[in-house]
């Protein structure tokens, strides 16, 4: 598949780097991290270490704090207690340019996609490249391949409100990986897409993981997690009552 080729090519350097340093290095670490909204604690003292090349599923009931935990992992929120290290930088003290650089290494698929509604999809997808000043002719080629892979070539000039929920979700994934990030965080990425597309998405995430990317996926979809077992060695974490637990094999 051409997009796979594109991703693989982009990830080549990363794979070489991974071989040099080996797996096991920590990219994101939560050390007793907690967060409260206006005094209501939603997370309390969570410990989590995401090693380079690892694959994690995060599950739990609605309102358990999955999205909050993910936001801590890409620095949109700072912990109200404990510490979150992003590539070795304490998220509470990192400067704003430093945080921007960290975010260029983390691709995020937001639950609500977060597109700019006045820009065509092609420009929305290349936004991370243009915002970081990294856009090039090769990137334009990658964009075309990514659009083809997520089945949105014919929607490149459409505005986000004109897309269906599934199309938006696929486009969000394409935007998350266009920067060739080291970590991919996805918040309910299969919430609005059919089973077939969920499987394609999972296959891509597994492929990216094999190339050394660290993956963290928050999902309600237990079937997706079960299906993933045949493709990747994933840890499944369950968030409940503000605490993180390693889920059992019943999943």
């Amino acid at each position, binding site marked *: 598949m051409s997009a796979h080729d594109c991703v693989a090519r982009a990830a080549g350097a990363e794979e070489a780097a991974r071989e040099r340093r080996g797996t096991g290095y920590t990219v994101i670490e939560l050390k007793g991290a907690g967060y409260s909204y206006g005094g209501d604690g939603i997370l309390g003292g969570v410990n989590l270490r995401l090693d380079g090349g690892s694959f994690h599923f995060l599950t739990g009931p609605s309102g358990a704090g999955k999205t909050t935990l993910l936001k801590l992992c*890409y*620095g*949109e*929120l*700072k912990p109200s207690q404990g510490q979150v290290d992003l590539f070795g930088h304490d998220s509470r003290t990192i400067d*704003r*340019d430093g*945080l*921007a*650089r960290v*975010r*260029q290494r983390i691709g*995020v698929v*937001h639950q609500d996609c*977060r*597109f*700019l509604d*006045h*820009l065509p999809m092609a*420009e929305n997808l290349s*936004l*991370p490249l*243009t*915002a*970081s*000043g990294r*856009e090039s002719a090769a990137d334009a080629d990658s964009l075309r391949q990514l659009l083809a892979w997520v089945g949105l070539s014919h929607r490149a000039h459409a505005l986000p409100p004109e897309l269906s929920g599934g199309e938006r979700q696929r486009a969000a994934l394409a*935007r998350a990986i266009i*920067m060739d990030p080291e970590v991919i965080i996805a918040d309910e990425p299969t919430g609005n897409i059919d089973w077939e597309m969920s499987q394609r998405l999972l296959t891509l995430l597994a492929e990216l993981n094999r190339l050394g990317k660290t993956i963290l996926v928050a999902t309600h979809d237990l079937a997706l997690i079960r299906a993933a077992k045949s493709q990747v060695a994933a840890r499944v974490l369950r968030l409940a009552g503000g605490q993180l637990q390693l889920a059992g094999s019943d999943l």
Partner: protein
Amino acid sequence: MSAAQRALATVLELLIGDRQADRAVPPTGFTVWLTVLTAGAMAFLAVFALALTLATGRLADRWADSLAQAVTIRISAPAEQRQAQTDAVLRILETTPGVASARALQTTEQAALLEPWLGPDLPIDRLPLPRLVEVVGDDLDAQGLRLRLAAEVPGAILDDHTRWRAPLVEAASRLRLLGWTALILIAGMLGAMVTLGAQAALAANTEVIRVLRLVGARDAYVARAFTRRFTLRALTGAAGGALLGTLAVAALPSTDAAGGFLTGLSFAGWGWLLPLLIPPFAAITAFAATRRAALRALARFE
């Protein structure tokens, strides 16, 4: 990179722009015309304030120079002694250092001076008017001359115009200060209005800013999209306003045609070039105001 290189890079960025950054931040309708019109109106007013400042400066200098050089000697004496005392005064002036020229005013000249107040049919030869001697000095010691006249010609009184010259010069100086104050206020108003417009644009684009930050945009990238837009709007508006203001000043009646202070408000010589400084100054003000507003707004987002 040195400060000068950074400034040059900033100017180039503003001129060349970043199409993607401009597209990422959609223009907010009312802030466009608010900024352009405000900059235009402020530039128009700034031209007049500038003209007033320069004109009052010229006026103060002219009054101070001309009054400092001219003194008047008034000879109040009985009619039969008036000519003799006038001659004595003129002889003294011939030997006084610092006197460039001196002459006694003719009766007709004195009548002409009084005509605006007492009318043309004044029987001046029957009035006990003092004789006036007009002296043009060149570094004249007025106090020394006054003492010498008091000793030798008791009826002659020297008036170096200090009594009414000082308030005139002070008034002109205060007018000049008023002009500078107006210019500062105009710059402040422009900065405040641009800040208001920028804050409105930033508030309307909260989600855009959040998304840009989340995809890894640095603050400078986001701020640049706003600062460039507002800077160019202010530059455009101020250029129009300064042009109209300059044309309006040029259209004022000429001094020769009407005479008087108000008609002297026009620019003179190199002063006509000064309105050219207003648009870049407005652009710099807008740049600083927008950048400050943008960075403050960005601080609310992680």
